[in-house]
């Protein structure tokens, strides 16, 4: 009876070899991938123009604008928190950039830089308030959401005298900034917006952080059980503030896209979009309770959303029913997602 050899039937369950198929079935985004394939097939059948290459560019654009925000929001949700201010923060970021450049008559890059600092500060404020007050993130970010909505309107009106910003299209640096945030690339005759690259990059970085770094482990830990995580030495406060900074950074990217594609920003925009980001993350397999999910899943969720909202247009359905179709498609995709996950967990 030597302790060096263990009987094969007493192997630690973490060391049990699993087949690649079973491993795949355990991935959080699997359900949403199946859902995406279903939505894709559905629209490929009912809408003639859905399969055109140019339509693909449009669908990807719609998905990317949402996906840029959905990736850090997914990370935040895995970390067990919400950010209801994310939608309006995008508008704030665009407004700050535009108004700073205009009022100071500065090169627009200066405004872009200032906007990055201020937006990150808003994110830090969310994280700081959350960890300091120990109030639920729902309350904290709801407060930030309302304050930002008011500040957007109030400041814009105070500074520019109207509710939208002045045009900055004729200012120095605008063209180069537009190239970075809002240009269009033509590949094989199809036009792709640069936001798609931003999206891919952000999802890539988020996935790398989540799966390959210590910070990624911390995110899963604080989302699973914050108390236990703290007990084993995970810096819960730093992790949560970091997650809010991630959301703020993505809001900055989206805000600059908004500004440089339309040159003028309306201060009342962005309300309601925060829910869309959360929906994309949930469709992508994130649990509302935290501790489970993936960044790639959020991308698939955003893609489903993009396909659904544009597919309805391609299918030329009666527009009166637009919102109903959108809701039904989303519900179906999420149900399918949940069903696949349950099957996968049952066989694992």
């Amino acid at each position, binding site marked *: 009876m030597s302790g060096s050899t263990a009987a094969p039937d007493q192997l630690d369950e973490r060391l049990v070899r699993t087949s690649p198929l079973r491993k795949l079935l355990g991935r959080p985004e699997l359900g949403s991938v199946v859902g995406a394939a279903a939505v894709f097939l559905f629209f490929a059948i009912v809408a003639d123009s859905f399969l055109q290459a*140019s339509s693909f560019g449009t669908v990807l654009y*719609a998905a990317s604008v949402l996906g840029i925000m959905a990736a850090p929001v997914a990370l935040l949700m895995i970390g067990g928190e919400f950010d209801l201010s994310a939608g309006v923060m995008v508008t704030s970021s665009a407004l700050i950039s535009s108004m700073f450049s205009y009022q100071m008559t500065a*090169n627009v*890059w200066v405004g872009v830089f*200032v906007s990055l600092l201020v937006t990150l500060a808003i994110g830090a404020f969310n994280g700081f308030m959350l960890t300091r007050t120990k109030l639920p993130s729902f309350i904290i970010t709801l407060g930030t959401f309302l304050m930002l909505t008011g500040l957007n309107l109030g400041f814009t009106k105070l500074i520019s005298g109207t509710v939208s910003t002045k045009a900055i299209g004729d200012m120095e*640096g605008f063209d180069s900034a537009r190239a970075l945030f809002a240009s269009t690339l033509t590949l094989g005759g199809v036009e792709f917006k640069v936001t798609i690259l931003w999206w891919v990059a952000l999802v890539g970085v988020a996935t790398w952080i989540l799966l390959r770094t210590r910070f990624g482990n911390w995110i899963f830990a604080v989302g699973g059980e914050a108390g236990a995580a703290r007990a084993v030495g995970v810096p819960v406060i730093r992790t949560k503030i970091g997650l809010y900074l991630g959301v703020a950074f993505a809001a900055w990217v989206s805000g600059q896209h908004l500004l440089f594609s339309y040159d003028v920003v309306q201060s009342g925009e962005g309300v*309601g979009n925060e829910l869309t980001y959360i929906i994309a993350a949930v469709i992508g397999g994130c649990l509302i309770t935290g501790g489970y999910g993936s960044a790639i899943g959020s991308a698939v969720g955003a893609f489903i959303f993009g396909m659904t909202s544009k597919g309805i247009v*391609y299918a*030329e359905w009666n527009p009166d029913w637009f919102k109903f179709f959108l809701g039904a498609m989303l519900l179906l995709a999420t149900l399918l997602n949940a069903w696949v996950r349950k099957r996968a967990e049952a066989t694992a």
Partner: protein
Amino acid sequence: MARVRTGVRAMGAVLAVVLGASLVGCSSTGGKRAEERAAAAAEGRAAVNTPRWTFAMVTHSGDGDTFWDIVQKGAEQAALKDNINFLYSHNDEANQQAQLVQTAIDKKVDGLIVSLAKPDAMKAVVAKAVKAGIPVVTVNSGSAESKEFGALTHIGQDETIAGEAVGDELNSRDRKKALCVLHEQGNVGHEQRCAGAKKTFDGTMQNLYVDGTNMPDVTASIEAKLQSDKSIDAVVTLGAPFADAAVQAKQTAGSKAEIDTFDLNAKVATGLQTDKLGFAVDQQPYLQGYEAVDLLWLYRYNRNVLGGGLPVLTGPQIITKDDAGALADYTKRGTR
């Protein structure tokens, strides 16, 4: 304390970098300096010495709506001239708007201006104001209900007539298949515009609903529509900011459609001049605010009622490339 001080010092450093960068990175074109150079300081003074009456305006505007901003500007300038204490409030939910009207009645204002986007919800409270002896002028929407509710007069645009004007204009431009882009689902005025356009337009017209609070989504939706139907040769948006989104969608979709729009702003004026847009239908929001205050003043001062109680129309005025140049400066200062 030490931590606090380093924090303050770090913030100071950031501020210094920002200010330094803004001085170094000045733009020699555009910006506020250009505006200041161009704008001459104009100061307003009351032109009359009538008592300082208080008029309240309660509209169905949402937060940050550029259209209502212009209405408000017109009203404020008339108020300044007429020596009026002008109060403005708004809410896009009918119930809340009615409550705001009630507060104006409670304040015993000397005149009330109200928009009737959801007439049924406003009926009772407007009747209350009339009963309390407050003269009421309705603006923008509600030309059909205005008189029935006991208002002195209505100032605005008849949405159906405006839509019909669009249909006629599209005909004269030889358009065959048009798209009407609605950015607020359930807005009665929007439906009336598209229905009016459909009525007089000889070609076919389809409606497209988009999410007005999400600009990239508006662009992508119009793009999708133009890609799925290449025969569309005209796109009509119902608000000025959406015209620009349509222009971008047209470029990406490689469509040849002409973009036309309701309402005017600085970008639309430039768009018309550079042929990116075909025409704009202006309902002159400045007039709606200005005239409403002025008519209440005339009523208080002289018991005058313009239009003899019939609606006074402020639109539709079709603006094309020819007129756009002359209007560009006014759009920039936010009064057109």
